[in-house]
């Protein structure tokens, strides 16, 4: 027998939890991968987020500006490419959360649209 098979799959410290499948609750252990899964959140088009980490090169809008779908909002440099970020919807700029030169992480909200 391989030595590894003698270790418990899930560390003993994890006590049994309840998992519901088709309205039946089962007593079982949960995996780290299962516990780390991301909860689903619907995409909010009115929040302009950084799709990868990068740098803000230019900002074309200010708070209160009225914008139309397709208007240029900012230029965002990532992976050595200048990406023009366009407005996905008509609306009013509620807030600009970054300034030129900012290095931003993935998923950061850059602009809020009303």
């Amino acid at each position: 027998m391989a030595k590894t098979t003698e270790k418990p799959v899930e560390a003993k410290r994890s006590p049994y939890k309840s998992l519901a499948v088709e309205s039946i609750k089962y007593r079982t252990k949960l995996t780290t991968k299962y516990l780390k899964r991301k909860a689903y959140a619907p995409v909010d088009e009115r929040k302009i987020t950084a799709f990868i980490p990068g740098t803000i090169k230019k900002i074309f809008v200010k708070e209160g500006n009225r914008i139309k779908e397709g208007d240029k909002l900012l230029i965002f440099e990532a992976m050595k490419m200048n990406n023009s970020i366009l407005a996905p919807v008509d609306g009013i700029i509620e807030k600009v959360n970054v300034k030129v030169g900012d290095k931003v992480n993935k998923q950061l909200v850059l602009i809020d649209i009303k």
Partner: protein
Amino acid sequence: MGLKQKTADLKKRMREAVKGGGSKAIEKQKAIGKKTARERILAILDSKSFHEYDMFVKHAGTEFNMDKKFLPGDGVITGTGTISGHPVCIYAQDFTVAGGSLGWAHAKKITKIMDHAMKLKIPIIGINDSGGARIQEGVNALAGYGEIFYRNTQASGVIPQISVILGPCAGGAVYSPALTDFVFVVEGVSKMFITGPEVIKTVLGEEISMEDLGGAKVHCEITGNAHFYAKDEEECFYQIKELVSFIPWNNELKAIPYPKKSPKKKYNIPEIIPADPRQPYDVRDIIKALADDSEFFEIQELFAANIVIGFGRVVGQTVGFVANQPLVLAGVLDVDSSDKAGRFIRYCNAFNIPLVTLVDLPGYLPGVDQEHAGVIRHGAKLLYAYSEATVPKITVIMRKAYGGGYIAMCSHHLRADFVCAWPTAEIAVMGPEGAANIIFRNEIKNAENPDEMRKQKVKEYKNKFANPYVAAAYGYVDAVIEPYETRSFIVHALEVSSHKKVRSPKKRHGIPPF
């Protein structure tokens, strides 16, 4: 020169070659807990069985002053030997020689030993410990990788291919192990990734250590790229020897049988399994109650632990076990477990290893993440693999087998040859709670006390359908047996199916959902 001098000259040349990258490089290798390439080969093979080939191969680099460099064996050791008497071809990259980098001659040595293994029809073991392509040799290094990948693919399903990652294995180099059957990794030593931490940092600004990105644990637990996890190289070599004892030398043979032994008495099925389908137990104990000497060699133990796969023997013959694991995530099927089991089933089918499937699952794991991760196409792999397999297929339905999960776990409909169920089996279109909620929706809604009515209807449904006898009435299970009879059921099934022949429709190959 007389014979004496010529012999002395040979010995001198051999001494030079065996030195590898020299004492300094070897010291460095050892300082981080790594053995040298030659030590690794000797540790895996039976003593004195190793015969080395191509010791005097010269590297092929001419540019960038490479022609002035002497690289013993061009950084890779190749040869043949035996593991507990089983013949194997083996190669080991030598990190002490130019970082184990892969040049044209290095690749040529590897492809030569691979071709040798295909001709001899014996397993090939590759030990990876390399900085990657030898940049000085340019496109010839890439050609070398391509030649290896092609051979990996050609050899797939013909001879067993085993990869051992004992050092870095990055960039394109990772695809040779990925194409092979089994990948072994060692804590703190193995590192596999396509793009390393440096690149990820420059391009994406994300910082991560090599270990967290592509260390042994990551590939065993998260990615599923590796199949065997070991604390150190010794343990890894022990696992390799174990594996080789379970598998045949090639796809035309069966694994060599061992003397038959009874399972150990302490694994007593009625004591292991709770009758309540909602209560957990370790399904590996059931496997141990069925396998010779209660010996179970588990594969991908840390990945998708909600399904258990591995080898055991029944009356001396190797069988592949696939079992839902109620201990983890209630034993559901999901993206990872379908992928894991599907591939293992195809391995067993390719190498004439009968399949024993132990069923106890509530169905598929619900969740947006699962749906969006493609549980449809990944789940389909399991159906495909079971349907396609023509080795003897034996299925034991232990407790619940609901809905799509029942079909997927080697049901008669996917051409299981022998299906037995225990009296505790519940073979139904879905769990009693869910079914009662749908069928008796109106009665429950219109009742004075809906909760009371629901309970009553669930109970009615349970009594009528949560058993093996409905399926047995249609012939979907061949026999309802007591748990203690399971081993003799399997023994008999193996006995009568040893000449099983199935003709599949003529095709170049199918299109499995991978």
